[in-house]
Structures are given as structure tokens and as C-alpha cells.
């Protein structure tokens, strides 16, 4: 299987504190992988590092770009990382609050469209076509995530669970090959989480987007992920299929405890 993301020996220091410690991680094409670990283990820092928001202290990050070539993306600006094909959601929801649901997704299309100032002013045929493409594409993504009934609502007025889904919709609009989800189920009730499961599987199956997710809901993680990476104190302490992780002694000791069988 070909990999889409290769992280080698990634290290991140905050002053004297080592948030990520020589972490290795690979995500394969079309795979659903999960990154789990106790609070403060460095999971979100890892996302911030590979998406260019933080600069890693050491290590290498490779992303297989749209053209199939592997590129080193260390130190690339966040917007360029997105353009290369890796999009993300945020743990603390960061939607554009003064925009509608549809407009939020339309912003996601920014990186795959081109209209400039002159296009905006003259509204030529190409620009109009592109605008229509943006609207159609955004709407179809909303449909995939069953958010179309909120289409003209302001994003802030949505229920919490729907806001999380909208974060995913917005990230999908950038046409990613790899989608990073930071605690997508946080704050959702069991029914909503169940629906999220199906949604994530659907995204992968229908669009072929690989997914790496951070999640505390073990049921969700065990149900949908093919590979699970466990981190603690910034170090990787285990990797394997859900079955393997369930029985991994170090993992059980360090983090999971009894919860896993619940």
C-alpha cells in the first residue's frame, strides 16, 4: 500500500518542554487512522505541527501530493499545506461566525479556484462559471454530510453537533487527500456520534479521502479505524489494529485501563 503521510522523528519543544518526542507515523492512502492518548499527550500539537501552524524542532514530514509525488512539507505555511492536499478541523470549533453555512463551505473552495480582482469586478463568463461551480460543489458537500437543511443559516446558530460536521464539510471543500479531524465527536450525544461514524466511513468510501483523527470516544475509534497510534508524553507507545491495541500491554497500562472493553 502506498503511504500518503510519512512523519519521521518529529520533535517539538516549547521552551524546555518537549511536546512531541521523535514521533514516527504513517498514514496510507484511503486509510482511516486514529491518534489516541491521554489529555496533554501532544496530539493536537502534532496536528498543528504537520499543518504548519507550529514549526517542528526536528524531524521530517512528507506528504504525497495530488500529482503522486512525495514532498517534504516541514515549515510550509498552513495555507500551502492545505493546497498540497491535507485539510483539518479544529478541536475548538473555528467557523466563520458572520457567514452562513454555505458560505463557510464556499470559503473552503478558495484554494481550488482562481478568480482575481479583475474577475470580481468584470464578472466575466469564466468567473460566473467558477462561482456557480463553487456554489454547486459546496451544496453537494453539505448534502453528503446531511447539512443541506441549514444551508442559509448563520454558522453560529447551528446546534453543536452540526457545527462539528460543518467543520468537516468546510475542510472537504479544499479537495483534500488526507483529512485531519481533531476530536470530531466531542460534545456529541451517542446518536450523533453513531451518525458521525457513518459519515466518516462514507467520506472515505465515496471520495477516497484518507482520514487521521484524534478522538477520545473509544467506541468510535475502535469501530471505524484501521490503524491506531497511541501517544503518551509526546512519544509513540503503540501502534496496530484496534484488536492489537486492545491487547497491547503497554497501551493498557499507560492509558486505556479497563475502559477499552466497555
Amino acid at each position, binding site marked *: 500500500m502506498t503511504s500518503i503521510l510519512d512523519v519521521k522523528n518529529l520533535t517539538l519543544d516549547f521552551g524546555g518542554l518537549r511536546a512531541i518526542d521523535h514521533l514516527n507515523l504513517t498514514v496510507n492512502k484511503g486509510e482511516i487512522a486514529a491518534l489516541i492518548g491521554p489529555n496533554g499527550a501532544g496530539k493536537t500539537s502534532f496536528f498543528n505541527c504537520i499543518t504548519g*501552524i507550529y514549526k517542528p524542532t526536528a524531524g521530517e514530514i512528507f506528504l504525497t501530493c495530488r500529482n503522486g509525488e512525495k514532498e517534504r512539507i516541514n515549515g510550509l505555511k498552513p*495555507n500551502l499545506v492545505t493546497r498540497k492536499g491535507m485539510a483539518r478541523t*479544529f478541536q475548538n470549533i*473555528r467557523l*466563520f461566525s458572520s457567514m452562513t453555512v454555505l458560505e463557510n463551505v464556499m470559503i473552503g473552495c*478558495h484554494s481550488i479556484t482562481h478568480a482575481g480582482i479583475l474577475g470580481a469586478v468584470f464578472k466575466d463568463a469564466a468567473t460566473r462559471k467558477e462561482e456557480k461551480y463553487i456554489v454547486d460543489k459546496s*451544496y*453537494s458537500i453539505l448534502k453528503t454530510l446531511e447539512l443541506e437543511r441549514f444551508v442559509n443559516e448563520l454558522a453560529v446558530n447551528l446546534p453543536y453537533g452540526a457545527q462539528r460536521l460543518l467543520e468537516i464539510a468546510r475542510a472537504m471543500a*479544499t*479537495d483534500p487527500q488526507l483529512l485531519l479531524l481533531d476530536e470530531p465527536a466531542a460534545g456529541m450525544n451517542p446518536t450523533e456520534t453513531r451518525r458521525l461514524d457513518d459519515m466518516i466511513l462514507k467520506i472515505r468510501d465515496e471520495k477516497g479521502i484518507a482520514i487521521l483523527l484524534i478522538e477520545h470516544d473509544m467506541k468510535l475509534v475502535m469501530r471505524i479505524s484501521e490503524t491506531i497510534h497511541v501517544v503518551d508524553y509526546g512519544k509513540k507507545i503503540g501502534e496496530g489494529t484496534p484488536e492489537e491495541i486492545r491487547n497491547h500491554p503497554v497501551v493498557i497500562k499507560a492509558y486505556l485501563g479497563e475502559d477499552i472493553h466497555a
Partner: protein
Amino acid sequence: MNMPVLNEIKKSLIAAIWFMFLTFPIMVIKVNTITRTIDWRWKNMMYTGIGAFFLSAVWRYMLRRKEKNQNALEKEGLSIVQKILQVKTFSIPATVLLLIFAIVFPHLFSMHQTNIMISALIYVMLGLGLNIVVGLAGLLDLGYVAFFAVGAYAYALLNLHFGLGFWTVLPVGGFLGAVFGILLGYPVLRLRGDYLAIVTLGFGEIIRIILENWNEFSFGPAGIANIPKPELFGLDLSLSAKTIYLYYIIVLLVIFTVFVINRLTDSRIGRAWIALKDDEIACQAMGIDKAKTKLRAFALGATWAGMGGVVFAAKTAFINPASFTIWESVIILCTVVAGGMGSIVGVICGALLLILLPEYLRDFGQFRMITFGAVLVLMMVFRPGGMIENVRRTYQFKTGETNDIHS
């Protein structure tokens, strides 16, 4: 009398005494250091006391009302003005009437009035340009007047040295404005909001100081005189005809500005600006280049300032660095803030009101700047959205509009 009223009076009295004390040395005592006499202006203290007594009551009442609105958590809906603006049957005839008024204006009123109107319309243009930067992209630019100066000096100098005419320089002025916008914008875009304000202020001052001191280039504080007004097909127009002609030019420019900004707001670029104002990090995560987007706003805003500068130079026929101080930037900011950041109608009303009122209210001129200061504070405290709050036109999706593409 019941207790709340008594309580209010007590608070007002305290405020009155406090402000009488606070303003005592500066409002009451005036020393003449040459004749060594002191002028005790006790009347001022009385005015201050009475003013503070009532104004503090109004202040507290307004604050309470604001708090109540916030607690109720309901946006008080659209104001009457906004509602009227949204009714097509009203807004279209109103626009037509306004246009007719604008067209006949110079024939109804004297040349003096027309000149005042030209100034006000230049401010409208500047306000609309600054509105791109502050209102849409959320970048506080306090050096905006520098681009205005660039335009004005471009016309004055190009005309002086090369004899270039108004129409040639108008686009050049806009272009130079944009170039300066990019040059000055590029190094400061990484800065956070308040730093950006100070650095742009610094840049604005640098340009003014250079204009003041580089005599060989800009003729220093003496300035440049005899800047010609635009020509119309080489016709020999009288001064009043030229003024009227210039008036129509600025009216057209304002209409052009409104058109362009309207289009921009509804475009991919306009959306990126608004998103950037909402959340920079999320914006970058969506693949939007923060620097490029901000730079676009900066450059576009500066373009209008540059063109406004050319018109200004043509109108006054004389320019010197004193016209381009930081306070000029603050006045433009004030028109944007008072009218309503982000709202085109708001900015137009704000600019017309703030520029025309002091012109027409006699004896009010000297209080112009202090009023502007108060307007900025009061607007921010009580009505941060401005007189005409911007209700952004959101994209309304209609079902059946899409062909359901599956990408």
C-alpha cells in the same frame, strides 16, 4: 420622590463635581505668560458642571440599555434604516432621485457650494477605500492619508515636470497608490491589529516628513501651486465651468467606486476578506494566503486614496505636506466608523455628514476635531456598528439552483 430617581441624581451630582474638579485648571484658569495676568473663567466651570450632570445621566441610561440588549441576547433586528434600504420599491426610486439631485446640484447652488461638495465627495471616495481595509478586511490602517498624498503629489509633480494632464495621471495616481500600498503593506502584514495601526501611522508620518524635508523633490513646506484642473477636449473653460466639470468627474468616480466595491464584496476575494476578519487561523487552514489577501485589501484601498489624491490636487490647485497629517487619516477613519464599518451606504452617509455639517454650521468649525474625537469614542461604546449597521448580504441559496455535481 422614589429612591431610584434620588440615586440617579446623586450619581449625576458626583459626576458633575468630579468633572468640575477635573477640568478646573485647564478650563477655568488661563494664564497669560507675557502680561503675567490670570483669567479666571468661572463660567466654564458652571457649564462643565451642568453638562456633566445631564450627560452622565444619559451615559448611564445608554449603558444600561446596551447591557439590557446584550442580556436579552436577541439582536434587536434590523433598524428602520436598514429595513427601508432593503425594500426595493423604496431604494430604487431613492437612488434615482439622489442621482438626479447629484446631477443638478452644481446648477442649483453656487460655485462655493459645489467646491464644498467636491471636497465631501473626495472624502466619500477615501472613506469607501478605507472601508475595504478596515471594514471588510479588519485591518486598522492609520497611515491611509499617505496614499492620498502619493496621488496628489503624483499629479502635481508629473504635471509640473512632464506636463501630464489629469486624465493621464488619474490611473497613474491610482496605480502608484496601489504600489505604495503593497510596498508599505508587505513588511507589516504579519503584525497583529494594534501594531499594524501604529506602524501604518508611522509610515504615514514618514511620507509626510520626507515631503516636508526633501525640498528638491517636493518643494518642501512651501508646496506646489498652480496645479491645473482637468481639461475637456481642449476647450477653454471658465473657472466655474471647470469646477462643475470636476464635480461631475468626482460624482462618476464615486459611482465607479461603489460599483467596484459592491462587486468585490460578493466575490471570492471579498469572502476571503470577511473570513480573514472572522478567524485568521481557520482562514489559513482553508488554504487562503493570509499575506496575499491582506495585501490585496491594502493595495485596493490605497488605489482609491491615490485617485482621490489626484482629484484633490486638481481641486485645490495647491498642495503642501500640511494637508496630509495623521489627523487627516483619523478623520477618514471617523467617517468610516460613524457611518458603519463595512456598509457602503453607511460610509457615504458618514462622510457626507461629518464633512458637510462642520462646513455649514457656522462657529462650529473650531469644535470639529473635538467632536470627531467624541464621535469615535461614543460610536465604539454605544454603537460599534455605526449609524447604518452593516447587515452583510449573505449568499442565499435557492433549491433547484444546483445540478448536483458529484466531485
